[in-house]
Structure formats: structure tokens, C-alpha cells
């Protein structure tokens, strides 16, 4: 390849990358811009990228209009509980699945794949009836139960991958040294798994924090609802909505999952890459 074509290929690549950057970034930048605009600028027929008179009024108005703090607290409780419970019950099973090739792990693997194909409506109607029977409709506990089960498939997947990355030889060495099985798991396997377990818990947290459909169906009263459900109240009946507070609230609701995702992103993609390379 001549120097010249190589250079023009490079230029084309950078141009394409630039297009991707713009496409990925512009809606988010617009959200931020809208969140900081004062009311007159929002009503203007010629909106600008940069607010002329940036303001925090929209954030104040958002908290006045809807019970955002309580909704955030509900989301936090649901997401932390779901993330915590999911890894506590999934880790032992993932360990068994990774170390055994049994019929059980084959069935569990099949279920993980199949569960991705459920239309949630087929799941939510019976769940709604079951939770109603248990008097758990409109409670965070009911929602947490659903979130735990809902996040189990991918929690298992992630954890199985992390367990497989721990060489069984380490466990054997400990066993040869006379450590009991429990001792081996606690003092050899668990420390090596810890980062993976944390990443899985955070991922389950983000999924629950972002979830909308189950929360919409299961939570009836505003004081029980989670952040995504409360956000839709800003939209108003016939699409007429208060743009500034809407943008401000939406921006705030995104921050926790963005920050956490940035933290574990390398682990998720790194795990995918490692898996690919080692196969």
C-alpha cells in the first residue's frame, strides 16, 4: 500500500470515528444543555447548544414537582437489595456450575438462554397474581424479589466466567495441604473471586436502578414508585411537558448508573475480551 493511500485511509477512519462520536454524544449533550436552560430560553424558537444564562432553577423545580428524593430512595433500596441478594444466592450456584458439568448446569445454562427470550408480559401477569396473593403488590419487597430473579441469569453467567478464571489447581493445592473444603473456598477461592462478585453486584444494581416495566406494573402509589416510574410523571397527559425540570430530573437519574458503569465497564468488557481470547 502506498504512503498516500495509507494516509487517506487513516483520514477516512478518523472522519468515520468523528461521525460516531457526534452521533453518540449529541443527545446526551442536548439533555445537559436543556437541563441548565432558564424558562425563556426553553420557550425560544431558536434553541442554542450553550445556555446563555445557565441556571439551576430546573433542578429546584424538578424536586418541587415530583417526589424525586423519595423515588431515588426507593430506587436505591430496591437496587442495593437486588444486587446484594442476587450475588449472595448466585455465587454458590455459579461455583457449582463452573466446576461441574452436570445435568443441572446444562439445565441452568439452557434456562439462562431461554429466559432472555421471555416477553415480560407472559411473566408479569402471573407474577402480579402471585404477588397480589402474597399481599406484596405496591411494596418494594415484591419488586426486589422480582428483580433478584430477573437479574439471576446474567449474574450466573458473569460469575461462572469469573469462577472458571480461578485455576482449580489452586484449590487442589489447598486440599492437598489438608484444608477442608469450606476452608479452601473461603480462604483461597473467595478472595480471587471478590472483584468479579463486586462487578456482578454492581451490574445487578444498575439493571435494577434502570428497570421500568416491572416497577410500572407492580408499584401503584407515588410514594412507593421508583425513579424511572416517577420520571414518566413529568411527561404529562398529552405530551405537553415541562422541558427544563424533565431534563434536570432525567439527568440526575442517570448519574448513579453512569458513574457505576464507568467503574465496572472495564471488568465487563475486559471479561468479554478475556473470554474471547482464551477460547
Amino acid at each position: 500500500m502506498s504512503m498516500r493511500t495509507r494516509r487517506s485511509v487513516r483520514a477516512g477512519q478518523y472522519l468515520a470515528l468523528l461521525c460516531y462520536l457526534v452521533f453518540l454524544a449529541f443527545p446526551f449533550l442536548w439533555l445537559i444543555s436543556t437541563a441548565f436552560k432558564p424558562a425563556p430560553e426553553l420557550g425560544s424558537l431558536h434553541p442554542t447548544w450553550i445556555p446563555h444564562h445557565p441556571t439551576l432553577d430546573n433542578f429546584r423545580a424538578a424536586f418541587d414537582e415530583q417526589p424525586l428524593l423519595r423515588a431515588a430512595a426507593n430506587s436505591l433500596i430496591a437496587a442495593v437489595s437486588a444486587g446484594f441478594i442476587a450475588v449472595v444466592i448466585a455465587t454458590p450456584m455459579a461455583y457449582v456450575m463452573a466446576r461441574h458439568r452436570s445435568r443441572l448446569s446444562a439445565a441452568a445454562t439452557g434456562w439462562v438462554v431461554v429466559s432472555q427470550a421471555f416477553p415480560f408480559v407472559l411473566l408479569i401477569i402471573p407474577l402480579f397474581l402471585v404477588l397480589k396473593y402474597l399481599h406484596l403488590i405496591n411494596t418494594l419487597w415484591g419488586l426486589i424479589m422480582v428483580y433478584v430473579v430477573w437479574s439471576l441469569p446474567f449474574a450466573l453467567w458473569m460469575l461462572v466466567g469469573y469462577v472458571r478464571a480461578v485455576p482449580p489447581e489452586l484449590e487442589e493445592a489447598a486440599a492437598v495441604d489438608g484444608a477442608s473444603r469450606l476452608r479452601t473456598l473461603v480462604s483461597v477461592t473467595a478472595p480471587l473471586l471478590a472483584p468479579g462478585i463486586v462487578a456482578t453486584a454492581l451490574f445487578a444494581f444498575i439493571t435494577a436502578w434502570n428497570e421500568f416495566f416491572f416497577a410500572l406494573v407492580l408499584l401503584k402509589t407515588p410514594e412507593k414508585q421508583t425513579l424511572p416510574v416517577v420520571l414518566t410523571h413529568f411527561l404529562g397527559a398529552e405530551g405537553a411537558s415541562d422541558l427544563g425540570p424533565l431534563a434536570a430530573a432525567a439527568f440526575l437519574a442517570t448519574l448513579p448508573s453512569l458513574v457505576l458503569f464507568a467503574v465496572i465497564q472495564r471488568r465487563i468488557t475486559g471479561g468479554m475480551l478475556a473470554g474471547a481470547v482464551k477460547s
Partner: protein
Amino acid sequence: MTLASATVQSGRHGPPGGPHGKGSARINRNAGTWFLVLPALLPILVLSVGPLLYGIALAFTDAQSGRTRSTQWTGVLNFQDLLHDGLFWDSFRIGLVWAVGVTVPQFVLALGLALLLNQNLRMRWLARALAIIPWAMPEVVVGIMWRLVYNPDAGILNETIRDLGLGDGRDWLTGLATALPAVILVGVWAGMPQTTVALLAGLQNTPHELHEAAALDGAGAWRRFRTVTWPALKPVALSITALNFIWNFNSFALVYVLTNGGPGGRTRLPMLFAYEEAFRYGQFGYAAAMGCVMVAVISVILAVYLVGRLGGGEDR
């Protein structure tokens, strides 16, 4: 989204203990193993597998919400009604158009981005960082954000159109002709990152030496892609595309926030239709039947995906 990693990870070798778990790990499958498995297995059976079977059973009843009279078995009546329900088939068709309309451009764009990110380019850390945003955002926020972009007066899209002198712009989400394409664009944007990362993982799986050898033999970029890159990428590409299709077909929150199925049902995906039927009109049995039909169609697609994967020769 994690199934992408799953497809990648499942290619790895199991423990050296062989298929029945005897040998090196030396964990006998006894009460202890069950003790490890039950905490996850029980909730799965009680709150996932059980309700799924219950849901299928409901499809053969006249179950309604808040009714005092007991529920009756009605056999295939719901399915017969569904067969003649033009609105449902409209939504089914819209669901297919949406799923294809999102999945295909998503794949093409993601492949392009993955190929770029696989090059040694300077701004690629920024692209990686930006690609996190759609992935980490709540779907509801993605919907709200794009409503702000599409807003007829205060939105950036129409302002850009006005600035470029291309007219006054329009009300994208409420126009009969523009609503579906407009929500499809949002779907593409929202799902691109996962696809990109999965494909990037597949790309890094391609043996580098093969690339160099092909380049030395004088193969051009397209030839190298076709003969070296694509064969290695195919299993991942197939998996992620099938899964994207399923996820998109079943999606709800994004379109609920963007248009709530409007205007005039033009963006009413099957899930929105079933949701309304179940939780606005209380027709649990009928909505469950819709779910069954959706599962049936998706199963066919999943079967194609599994056959394709096995045929792809990626697995043991």
C-alpha cells in the same frame, strides 16, 4: 446484554475434570452441593419457571383482573379471538418492522465502530467512553432525552434543520409517517454499544498473524475482512444479532416513553399492546395468549440461532 459475554465465554474449556465433574475439583455431588445450589434454584423455580408455566396456562382461561366470578377454562378461545384481532396483528407487524429496523442498522453501525476501535486510532478512548452512555442509561431517560431532541420547537433536530435551510422541521414523534422511523433511530442509538463491545471482543479473537499473512499475500482490506475477519467474527455476530432481534421485539420502555404507541397505534409494539390489554383493560387471559404467540415466534428465531451457532462450529 450479558449474553454477548456468555456466548464468548461459553467457548472456553470446562474444568479438567471431564463432563461429569469427577476428578480434579474433587467436589462430590452430595447434600453439600445441593446446599450451594438451592438458594438460587428455589427463587428461579418459584418466581420464574413457575410463573412462566402459570402464564401459559392463563392463556387458556378467561382470567380478568379484579373479577369476583371464578376463572373458567376456555380452551383455545383466546387464540381464536387473537387470530381475528386485526389490531394485534398490526402491532405484531409493527413489532417485526421495528425489530428488523433496529437490529440491522445497529449491527452495521456497531460493526463499523468495532472495526474502527480495533485500529490504533487516537480518539478511540473517547469513543469507548461515550459508548458507555447509552448502555448505562435507564431506558426511560433515553426516551426522555430523545423527546427533547425531537421536540418540534425547542429540540435540536428541528433547529439544525432550520439552520441548514432545509425547511421548518416537523413534529417527528406525532407524525403518522415519521413516528416509527423516529423511534427506530432511538432504538439503534440505544442498543449500539452492547453490540459494538460484543463484536470488538470477537475481533480481538481474530488471530493477528493471519491478518499479517494475508496482507503479505497482497490481499486488500475487503478481501482480508471477508477471508480472515468475518469467519472468526461470525459466531459472535450471529449470536448478538439473534439476541438483539429478540430483545428489540420484546422492548417496551423506550417506545412507551417516546410515543406510548401513538400516533394512532403506528408505534404500538406487541408488548405495549399486551400491557394495555392486561393492565388497562384487565384481560389477563387474552394478554397471556398474546405473550404465548410472541414466545412461539421468538422460539423459532432462537432455534435458528442455536442451529446457526452449532453449525458455526464455534463450540466444543
